[in-house]
């Protein structure tokens, strides 16, 4: 993690891009006026808010990022169906559990993204992150195999994240 210089024209390029897209989405248009305005806002708002961000490792590998996002979305859909069935079914069949997932990534943003992903996907909710950021506590709605699950989380989500953030 590098310490950031005091002023940069594009302090948060990813944010800027995101903002630009969001602006167009908000206005539901690609009219030239909004392109200009969107670009302007995408420049100005990060300038205003860059101070309000804790320094984070930067994104790399946009492709991996994209693939990761698609995978998560797919997982969300699947997870939802699973959970839906579990919910409809008799509660007695449920096999809830707490597990602790050891973490290899350390920086805050990646951990947050990992925890979020875990929460969004297979019957799991990130309940807590240990103070030393070494452990992610997860509540599982219906656990079949603990080690498999931990391995899945680490393999399927943590690894690509480490790749993306290069840590």
């Amino acid at each position, binding site marked *: 993690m590098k310490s950031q210089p005091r002023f940069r024209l594009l302090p948060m390029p990813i944010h800027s891009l995101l903002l630009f897209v969001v602006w167009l989405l908000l*206005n539901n248009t690609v009219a030239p006026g909004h392109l200009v305005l969107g670009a302007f806002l995408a420049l100005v708002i990060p300038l205003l808010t860059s101070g309000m961000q804790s320094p984070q490792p930067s994104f790399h590998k946009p492709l991996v990022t994209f693939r990761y996002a698609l995978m998560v979305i797919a997982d969300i*859909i699947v997870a*939802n169906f699973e959970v839906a069935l579990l919910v409809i079914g008799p509660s007695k069949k449920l096999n809830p559990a707490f*597990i602790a997932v050891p973490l290899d990534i350390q920086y805050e943003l990646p951990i947050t993204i990992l*925890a979020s992903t875990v*929460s969004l996907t297979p019957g799991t*909710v990130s*309940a807590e992150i*240990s103070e030393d950021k070494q452990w992610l506590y997860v*509540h599982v709605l219906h656990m079949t195999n603990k080690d498999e699950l931990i391995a899945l989380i680490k393999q399927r989500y943590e690894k690509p994240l480490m790749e993306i953030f290069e840590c």
Partner: protein
Amino acid sequence: MEFWIELVVSVFLVAGAVFVFIGSLGLAKLPDFYTRLHAPTKATTLGMGGLLAASAILMTYQQGHLSLHELLITLFLLITAPVTAHMLAKTAMHHKLQITEKTVDKELSKRARERNTPT
């Protein structure tokens, strides 16, 4: 309106609504807080996704240009739902809420509560 658009929209609508409903149903019927926590935070994401997709398709069709701003709401929900769940889980552990008997490794919640390592 073309039939297939109406069909797709209708399917998305009903599917979304069903997920919304299941989420709320889970909230109502699941045995303890931690299990209840799963239902809405997940089901609603997909449920909302369905409804918003229906809306996006319909609006695009009706207004004649691409309407994707519903995506924003989905995006928002995707970003915030895990945090909400996390915060709620924290409160639950803080209040030492009763955990349903069958839960594996109940003791882990105490470690989590203190934000300690598992052992």
